[in-house]
């Protein structure tokens, strides 16, 4: 198992390097000249030329790429903001916890409501409970989360004045700032979680080992919770993992609406103000985080299903397992 984790971590190195190179190359095509963006419109030609020299912008792209890569992966330095000159790593350190908080809260809502809905729909298949759950899931997928965010703000902040519409707070009181963002971000994930759970449960409920469990005299509740649900977890974990990853990126819109100074607003503000080192560094950082999430998902598979664990240990390809699961 440890060998598998190590192998996966080693595999991540070329991916992360690839992401960094890709993002770097893409950013060189961004509109606008860096020295102008840094020095502003009032700068003179000489100042601009000096800045170009300082940043080494006239060097060949390979050289600049090499320099950037060594900064990132050897010195763990993502550079500084062009506009504020603040170190990017320290900004990420400050902002990441907020995004993580939002992401985790969103995930908890999605899973905490989505799985029970899916289970209910599956055990009450074709009854009204099933229809209600599935209609909810469809609506959840269809509603764009930024629209829901606006509607929630309208209702709970503007009309009822129960919850804050913008910003963040400190301490325990800070939690209420995350309620609306987390709810509006969770609907899509909640819906796909419910749908996945339902279809996985429906497959499993028909399996022979569920009949075996019933024939042993296992109470129906345990048949579902102990025997069926654990076997349905693989597709659910997949959804959760991708959701987590997506939300790290997708939280950008939610963060913008609710003015939460997290990773999303950081990158979007940077795009709008052409502060490209932030876009570059932030993307690389999020990609690394995302890759770790995917690794954790694969490890969770192994925790849930001993067959997958055995396949990891024997070093067979994991793709086969997923196809079967």
């Amino acid at each position, binding site marked *: 198992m440890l060998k598998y984790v190590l192998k996966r971590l080693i595999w991540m190195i070329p991916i992360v390097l690839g992401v960094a190179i890709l993002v770097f190359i893409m950013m060189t095509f961004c509109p606008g000249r860096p020295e102008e963006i840094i020095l502003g419109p009032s700068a003179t030609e000489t100042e601009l030329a000096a800045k170009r020299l300082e940043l080494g912008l006239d060097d060949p792209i390979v050289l600049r790429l090499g320099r950037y890569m060594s900064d990132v992966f050897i010195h763990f330095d993502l550079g500084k903001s062009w506009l504020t000159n603040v170190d990017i790593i320290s900004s990420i350190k400050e902002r990441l916890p907020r995004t993580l908080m939002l992401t985790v809260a969103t995930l908890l809502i999605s899973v905490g409501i989505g799985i029970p809905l899916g289970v209910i729909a599956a055990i009450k298949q074709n009854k009204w409970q099933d229809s209600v759950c599935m209609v909810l899931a469809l609506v959840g997928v269809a509603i764009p989360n*930024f629209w829901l965010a606006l509607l929630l703000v309208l209702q709970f902040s503007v009309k009822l004045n129960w919850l804050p519409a913008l910003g963040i707070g400190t301490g325990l009181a800070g939690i209420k700032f995350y309620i609306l963002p987390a709810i509006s971000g969770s609907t899509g994930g909640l819906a796909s979680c419910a749908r996945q759970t339902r279809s996985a449960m429906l497959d499993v409920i028909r399996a022979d080992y569920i009949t075996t469990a019933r024939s042993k005299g296992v109470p129906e509740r345990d048949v579902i919770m102990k025997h069926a649900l654990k076997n349905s977890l693989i597709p659910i974990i997949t959804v959760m993992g991708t959701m987590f990853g997506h939300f790290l990126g997708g939280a*950008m819109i939610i963060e913008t609406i609710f003015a939460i100074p997290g990773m999303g607003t950081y990158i979007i503000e940077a795009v709008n103000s052409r502060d490209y080192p932030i876009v570059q560094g932030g993307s690389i950082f999020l990609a690394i985080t995302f890759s770790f999430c995917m690794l954790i998902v694969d490890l969770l598979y192994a925790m849930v299903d001993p067959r997958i664990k055995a396949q990891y240990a024997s070093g067979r390809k994991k*793709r086969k397992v997923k196809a079967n699961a």
Partner: protein
Amino acid sequence: MPKTTYAKKQSGFATVMKQMSKNKAAMLGLLILSTEIILAILAPYIIPYDYSYMDMANMFAKPSASHLFGCDDMGRDIFSRVLYGARYSISIGIIAVSIGSAIGCTIGAISGFFGGQVDNIIMRLLDIIQAIPGMLLMIVISAVLGPGYFNTIIALSIGSISGMARMLRAQMLKERENEYIEAAQSINCSKFRIITSHLLPNCISPMIVSATMGVAQTITIAAGLSFIGLGVQPPIPEWGAMLSAARQFIRQAPHLVYFPGLAIAVTVLALNLLGDGLRDALDPKLKN
């Protein structure tokens, strides 16, 4: 899972439609969607007001008989704008997914069929692209290309390539295991013929389903990009852009927020209903 492999050629479109027509939800989705598309095409001729006509007297007008959905901050008729906006929002989704699928499927087919080193290289490249969370990738591409209708389409097309390629490849690998491929090889079918007349037709149905769902997702993402100012720009009445503009008036005129969002939700819902129905019709085995 062994998939029933009917000869798709003779079943074709008619059979699928017949299957679908039994599914009320799917038919509802199809009805909504086709109505929307027809309205979008006819929009310039049927909208009551020009979408950019400003009537300051009707600034923030509430929904009424003359302005069904009310008017926005510049007195423009929201009903006309939402209807006209369908041209942008829906076309972005359909065009981007078509381009993305065409490129993605080609890559996936090459990768899935040749296997070996070709497959390895393609897959590693896709791994890299997929290591960037979807929305972030779109934002980075939009940052490079700049905002605008066509750039948004390009960004979204690029964004959907890797998912489509991966999916077709996985389908082909699964399909390649089937014995009928061995049978085809045993009667000396050429590789190209095996791909085009055996593998692809049997892989196509899940691709159609995921493309349908993809259009829904792309419409949402496009609206999201416009919402944060990186997609289609005002004054073009794209739904996301309209929401973005409406946001600042949420206190004075909440009705500005309702209708564009509702339009997105209904469209996405219709596409999902249609996608679910197609999936059930194309592959009865997946149906629960």
